[in-house]
């Protein structure tokens, strides 16, 4: 019986002109934003891949020089881009994409895409995921608010119930039809566009993009189902279609628009973002203090004493190299301590925002969606860690090579390609899929909790529906 009712509801929906208009408009919007997103992602991915190879060749082709000079020459590292960033850029527009790797300085990732974008871009939904998470809920509300309330006003609900249709079967059939429609006009395009992204952007296999895409699409449909349940429950409870529409729109406005921003402001009030400039100033002051001339000279004397000599020419090692290596170890500890504190505060804010997902499914889906698409903060943090580990390897390799080659009678030591080649190519691989799935467990649970709670409300309302 439910299946028959479901087929009938689907047939009725398919005949409605507004459904075709909505499907067409969504397809156009999603395709337009995807086209631009894909172009940018593909261009950046290919450019990054090319320049990574060029940088490697530049590094290896350096002329013979002091190894510390080579460490200053350094190289650039580029963050690999997830193919799904074409449909869900996540936090990537607000994060730097490339880092200069050099001695003495732990540089920030620079050039955030959001700073180059037009000012009006921040007010819009310029990506496929923006459309899915802001526009689609509005669309499903407009499709679903009259599911029962409209019938009640026309008097046809009384007829349907009077013909023996159980309210719960009616709910299942109508909700099922609307969900199937949503899957068709939203899920199918999302899957198609994601597939195109996986095929067009290099290294999709490394990201395990196909299973990610399937889980990601299912999550978006689950999120749309939350608002569909809101509209259906409102339709069951409200006396008029107008009331159902007003209640659903209020819910959408509060949950999808206001709550995320309120959560951001509340988290900022409870756990303020630490002042990055203050942290940089502390790091700089501590490093400068350590490098003060008198302290520097004391450390030189200590090295001379360790080797039992009184002048640097008698040392079996290069003094300057040893001092630079020592300084780098000190600076690493300073960076680790200060940046560790800063990142811990950001992580605390992330946890608080995630908890705010209990008050808004939009927050939960945003976090979940980014993690699956590989455009989240954890991915960025992994990239920064990989870069810093590589920078330390570069610096230590060059300094220790210098230490091992004190200037001889033939003149200053000049390293060459065999030394440069000791540093392997820079490689940053994304975490495996199971790590992402572990990370999304909590936001997924929150989204499921919303579905279960709203499903319960809809069932309860269906049992008590009055025609």
């Amino acid at each position, binding site marked *: 019986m439910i299946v028959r009712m479901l087929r009938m509801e689907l047939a009725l929906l398919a005949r409605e002109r507004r459904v075709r208009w909505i499907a067409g408009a969504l397809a156009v919007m999603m395709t337009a934003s995807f086209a*631009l997103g894909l172009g940018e992602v593909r261009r950046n991915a290919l450019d990054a891949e090319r320049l990574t190879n060029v940088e490697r060749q530049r590094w290896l082709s350096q002329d013979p020089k002091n190894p510390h000079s080579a460490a200053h020459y350094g190289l650039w590292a580029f963050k690999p881009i997830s193919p799904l960033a074409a449909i869900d850029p996540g936090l990537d527009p607000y994060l730097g994409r490339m880092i200069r790797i050099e001695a003495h300085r732990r540089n920030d990732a620079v050039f955030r895409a959001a700073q180059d974008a037009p000012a009006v*871009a921040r007010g*819009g939904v310029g990506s496929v995921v923006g459309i899915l998470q802001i526009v689609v809920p509005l669309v499903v509300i407009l499709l679903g608010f009259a599911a029962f309330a409209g019938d009640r006003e026309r008097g046809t609900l009384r007829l349907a119930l009077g013909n023996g249709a159980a309210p719960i079967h009616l709910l299942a059939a109508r909700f099922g039809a609307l969900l199937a429609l949503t899957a068709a006009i939203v899920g199918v395009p999302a899957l198609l566009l994601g597939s195109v992204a996986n095929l067009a952007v290099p290294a999709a296999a490394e990201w395990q993009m196909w299973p990610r895409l399937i889980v990601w699409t299912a999550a978006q449909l689950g999120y749309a189902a939350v608002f569909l349940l809101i509209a259906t429950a409102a339709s069951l409870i409200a006396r008029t279609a107008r009331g159902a529409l007003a209640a659903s729109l209020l819910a959408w*406005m509060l949950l999808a628009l206001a709550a995320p921003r309120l959560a*951001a402001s509340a988290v900022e009030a409870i756990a303020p973002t630490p002042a990055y*400039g203050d942290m940089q100033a502390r790091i700089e002051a501590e490093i400068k203090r350590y490098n003060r001339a008198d302290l520097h000279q004391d450390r030189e004397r200590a090295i001379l004493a360790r080797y039992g000599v009184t002048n640097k020419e008698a040392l079996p090692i290069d003094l300057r190299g040893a001092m630079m290596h020592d300084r780098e170890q000190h600076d690493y500890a300073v960076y680790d301590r200060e940046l560790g504190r800063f990142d811990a505060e950001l992580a605390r804010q992330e946890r608080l925002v995630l908890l705010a997902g209990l008050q808004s499914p939009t927050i939960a889906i945003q976090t979940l969606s980014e993690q699956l698409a590989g455009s989240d903060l954890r991915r960025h943090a992994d990239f920064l860690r990989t870069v810093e580990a590589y920078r330390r390897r570069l610096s230590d390799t060059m300094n220790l090579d210098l230490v091992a080659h004190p200037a001889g009678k033939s003149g200053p030591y000049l390293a060459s390609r065999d030394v440069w080649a000791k540093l392997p190519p820079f490689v940053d691989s994304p975490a495996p899929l199971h790590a992402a799935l572990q990370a999304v467990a909590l936001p997924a649970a929150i989204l499921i909790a919303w579905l279960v709670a709203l499903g319960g409300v809809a069932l309860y309302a269906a049992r008590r529906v009055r025609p």
Partner: protein
Amino acid sequence: MSSVGRRLLMLEIRALLGQPLVIAVYALLFAAMLAGAANGAARIARERAMLSNVMAEEARAISTAKAASARYAKPSPLAIEYHRDPTDAFGYMNYFLVTHAVKPPLPLAALAAGQGDLQPARIRIDFNTIFPDAAYDRGNPRMLKLGEFDLLFVLLYLVPLGLIALGAIRLTGEQDSGVLRMIAAQPVSLRTVAFAKAGALAAISLLAIVGGMLFALLLAGAPGGLPVLGVALLVAMWALFWVALSVLVASYWRGAVASVATLVLIWGALTVLVPTMTALAIATALPTPSRIAYIDASRKAMDGFYRDEATVHAGWIARFPQYADRAPEMAKSPEVKRFARDAYYRKALLPERDAFAAHSAATGRATELARFLSPAMMLDGAVQAAAGTDADRHIAFVAAADAYGERLRRWFEPLALANAAQPRRSCAACPGRLNFNRFDDVPRFVPVADAGHGARRIVLGILYLAAAAALLAAWAARRLRAWPV
């Protein structure tokens, strides 16, 4: 207005004020405005604290340099290189100088976060960076993405929804319930009735929304004056636009549900869809130059410099004829090597930097033109300009910061070159070179005078929204000639 009209207007006002839904909507909007203004005030407090810390940091750096100077001015066996010597002009410039270009918040900054949370309010002048335009303050990207719950958000997104909730059913609700037929039987024109209903809503909304906004701004510590009056007028026109639109949609007599749905769709189109399509169109027509290509260009410049170092050094010092006789020795000094290298990189990357500047300017012009497509975009641009958190102000700030950096170079150059030409020590037994002690004379950054920033945009916004509201009201009046019954 006829006496019947006046009586109806007063009746409608009393009826509106007696409805719990109306009180609830205005109370919610007021609470939202208070929250928005409070968040704005908190943001300004954070910015001011940051700027205060910046000044303290600069003062500390100067006192540290002075203390080191005092130490190094006494005879001692300590030998120090120039990059550890704050008493050397060149050493101080590159390794001890701490100075920033700053962009203080404007008096109405509490109105809107705008681009202010994304773009830095301070730029550290760093002669060691090859990309002075890459500066930003690393905050929490999650907060940037979610956006601030500020006054502009409330005005742009929530106020129209509140007005739709109240205004969409003023006429159509009576149509649906059949009361309209009874009103039509009275000796009163449809236009009089519609005007009374719309007028009542407009009057109460102006009081509640504009008054609420002003009160919220007052609590946030924003000063009064002409800019606030301008913003109040702007918001008043915005509210009237939505009241007029509600009446126009109602004049199509499609029922309350269809009216609400239509208005919400129009709201979605104006506040979300049109900005999205505009941003996509601008990004397509004016693609951002590649930052990766910019980096590649910098590396090529670096390689080019190191291939021809000696020629570059000699070419740079040749610009100073007063040092012609000492040029060959000076070309080997760290001062000349560094100045020559920095000048070479700046010149080599100028085409790329100009391309980015041209792109910013073109994008800005296209955005300002596109704002005419949507009243929401017009309001957004005007309020951001009033708050001083718009893109234009930041572009001007970055240019001023760059000019300041160059001015500092020009200030230190003669001092450093004089020492490179004739390295001398006033105290042979002292560790410091003691050729520089003008720590307090180093030029400071003077923020760009921003008085009246945004005035043009506010006036334009007021005129645009007033014209739009008037057009919609005239259109609605034309349609409301006869009763639909």
